[in-house]
């Protein structure tokens, strides 16, 4: 039993990690009051940017950063359309996804099937020796370890820094933030850019750690799952971790089943994460916590004279 479960749980952590990065990124964006449905496109292009950088420079770390920056650039596009030009946030996000996925397929053609230097798992000193938990959590690559810290940083940012308070105020009531002498537009840009960076890191994880080679459709709906998980998490980083690993678990489980070989057709197994997303939304709606959403989420700030 343990022989099956421990590798399964370890794989859960690994496949949950990119979703976790993206979920936190989208959460950051939404905390600032901007809905970004471009996550899928941003993860795709970031995965390619990361792969290309690592492939050309040989440095996975540079690649990782490049992924973040690509996400940030796309976030900037979204912010320009929505925050500056007051475009519809839903439609802009969709456009960004169409654009990002298209651009990824277009630019990625020459690299399909090629490998780039990526991140490899190593035993985390000391902690990996803990029985069971060490096996599950501390035999991964560096980016997984970093993702353990990220939710804490996220929490710290919003609860323990004034800047985080300003961003949250902008997501709740931009007029109040402005009256307090803050600049809501700048704060929203920050939220979208910082969120985009994290979403980009999630994309980079896909090409640099999850696989080390380039294939099309690497993102595979993870961006959308991240958007759903923000709702599931009630905009709290702790619950985002739970949600991301839940998905990681289902994806890992489904891959394992395929590897073991079952009678179930693979296409039906592949539906599992998507079905689970809907289920998760039903469950979180059931608990009726819509009030946790930032009050100004999805509404643009009209310019005043």
């Amino acid at each position, binding site marked *: 039993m343990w022989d099956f479960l421990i590798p399964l749980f370890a794989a859960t952590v690994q496949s949950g990690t990119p979703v976790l990065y993206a979920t936190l990124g989208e959460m950051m964006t939404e905390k600032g009051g901007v809905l970004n*449905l471009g996550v899928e*496109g941003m993860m795709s292009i970031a995965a390619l940017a990361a792969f290309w950088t690592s492939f050309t420079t040989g440095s996975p770390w540079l690649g990782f950063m490049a992924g973040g920056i690509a996400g940030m650039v796309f976030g900037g*596009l979204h912010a*320009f*359309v929505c925050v*500056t*030009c*007051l*475009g*519809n946030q*839903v*439609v*802009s996000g*969709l*456009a*960004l*996804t*169409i*654009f*990002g*996925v*298209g*651009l*990824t*397929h*277009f630019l990625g*053609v020459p690299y399909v099937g090629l490998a780039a230097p990526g991140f490899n798992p190593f035993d985390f000193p000391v902690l990996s020796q803990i029985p069971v938990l060490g096996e599950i959590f501390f035999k991964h690559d560096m980016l997984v370890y970093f993702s353990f810290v990220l939710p804490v940083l996220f929490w710290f940012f919003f609860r323990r820094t004034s800047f985080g308070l300003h961003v949250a105020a902008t997501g709740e009531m931009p007029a109040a933030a402005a009256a307090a002498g803050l600049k809501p537009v700048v704060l929203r840009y920050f939220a979208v850019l910082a969120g985009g960076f994290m979403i980009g890191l999630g994309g980079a994880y896909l090409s640099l750690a999850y696989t080390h080679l380039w294939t099309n459709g690497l993102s595979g*709906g993870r961006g*959308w799952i991240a*958007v*759903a998980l923000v*709702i599931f998490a009630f905009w709290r980083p702790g619950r985002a971790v739970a949600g991301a690993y839940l998905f990681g678990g289902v994806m890992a489980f489904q891959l394992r089943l395929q590897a073991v070989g079952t009678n179930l*057709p693979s*296409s*039906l197994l*592949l*539906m599992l994460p*998507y*079905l689970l*997303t*809907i289920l998760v*939304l*039903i469950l979180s*709606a*059931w608990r*009726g916590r*819509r009030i946790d959403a930032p009050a100004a989420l999805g509404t643009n700030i009209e*310019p005043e*004279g």
Partner: protein
Amino acid sequence: MLKIRKRDEPWKWGALVVFLGALLFSLLVGGLILAGHGKDALHALDLLWQGSFGNAWALEGALLKAIPLFLCSLGVAVAFRMQIWNIGAEGQFALGAIGATWMALTFPDLPRYVLLPLMFIMAFVFGGVWAFIPALLKLKLRVNEIISTLMLNYIAILLLDFLVFDAWKDPASFGFPMTPEFTPGAVIPSIGNSGIHWGLFFCVVVGFGLWGFMRFTRLGFELKASGEGARVAKYAKIRYGMLVLFVMTLSGGFAGWAGCIETSAVLGRLQGSLMVGYGYTAIVVAWLARLEPLNIAFASFLLAALRVGVENMQLELQIPAAFGSILEGMILLTVLAGQFFLTYTLERRQGGE
């Protein structure tokens, strides 16, 4: 120093100016991307033009592709008008194709005048149900319809995969994932000797039908009124919930019809190559057309032409088909940004000091 001012009157022709500007800008950037890729951008754009509008054959191809796009966009537009974000046209399209195929495979020997209507009905039902589910979830449990419709897209495509790889696979297909070919009774015939099938006529009927419905009927008026928000609808004693279910079913049904027509008239069987992203392009079309049925006709033809043109470039220059998505995404983004000028205008700040 410039200052932003809200317009007192809407900018006449502004929407058209913004649209053309966005188109031009996107083509320019698209050209630059191609140039950066080591292609001759001017030649490529010429190929794009030739492929879209250059000859009768190209126009015919565009018209063919415009048919499913038009139907999907109509569906998307009625939902968007009520501020219900149905992103699920892609999945509803697939379900429509599945419903139609089911009929075609179950009753292959029925005469055309019975079988085709049966396929259309089933396509509408399947597509409609696929949209009804998220509508119901939204109303009863406040489940975000953007995510649920999108997830249903992935599920629908996997279901289609399952059917063509497994359940409905043609034993004589040498292992290719596809259903047996439809009997003639299940195929929508061409108009005369042209390459265009009667689905075009169907589109014209549906388009005018919807236009008249929105303009002259009470239900259409209630739909338009509800577009301003659920609160107004409630104030006016409009049965908003029922309307959401109705509109989503209609929306999914239209996409389902598109799937039916594409399967029956173009492919003649169900196979994976059916799914080329019409459902997503339909969102672009609907928004560019500002959700107006008649504008949608033009916009879907235009974007269909773009697709055909990109295919032409793909053949001649080995440019990936994804170039089409790049253009679509960029046009939509620039239109969104440009729509700023429909509500606001910039003017010089007077005096200052």
